[in-house]
């Protein structure tokens, strides 16, 4: 049964680009977290549980994580409406 979205929930957009999109099998999806905000490390733990198809990507040491189009290099807080993207190493133009 689908859970209704509560006021304390937050919706996030999860994206996989390039080879990661092919590994996972989709490029963009909206997920709901049952709290208003979440630390990035906690989100990764959550995604490992709910997106088993992303296991190889989450385990990759080469991956870049971008939040709202900015590459993140340290812990941060993810809030409602944020877009979290998993990027393989860029190959440039």
């Amino acid at each position, binding site marked *: 049964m689908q859970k209704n979205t509560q006021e304390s929930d937050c919706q996030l957009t999860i994206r996989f680009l390039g080879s990661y999109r092919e590994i996972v099998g989709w490029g963009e999806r909206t997920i709901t977290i049952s709290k208003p905000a979440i630390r990035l490390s906690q989100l990764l733990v959550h995604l490992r549980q709910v997106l088993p198809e992303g296991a190889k990507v989450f385990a990759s040491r080469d991956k870049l994580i971008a939040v709202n189009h900015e590459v993140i290099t340290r812990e941060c807080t993810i809030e409602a409406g944020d877009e979290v993207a998993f990027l393989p190493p860029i*190959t*440039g*133009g």
Partner: protein
Amino acid sequence: MVFQHILLQQRQFDQNEEAKTQLQAINNCGAMVSFSGYVRADTGVKELFVEHYPGMTESSLARIVEKAKDMWPVLGVTLIHRVGALFVGEPIVLVITSCSHRQDAYNANRFIMDSLKTDAVFWKKETMLVNGCLESCWVESTNSDIRARREWENIS
């Protein structure tokens, strides 16, 4: 006022038209350098797919152009990069730089191209003919691209 034109597009570009547009928009141009990159037929490559991340890729291109403008007295810069499926022999990227003097125009142009190879948010997938069958694989960054980009770090 520096002329600046940055664009991502699927369709082909007209190099002469873009150069003309830039030249008409700037004053007292002493040197214009135009570089076009094409899809090579390396190791049986038949098609190149260029993937970008809308929003983030445009920001990465803008940052590269801003750095070039900080480092050289640029009068005009045009950067057009194609995305999507491209075939061998087709143009993929256009960089036009204008300055008062040729050395600055050359340097700014080469800096933008070298930076594109390492800092622009693109992923490329090559489709090639291997033993009569088409195979696709994602391209990885090359050491020569990274070395070329690092050369500029020593002077910036």
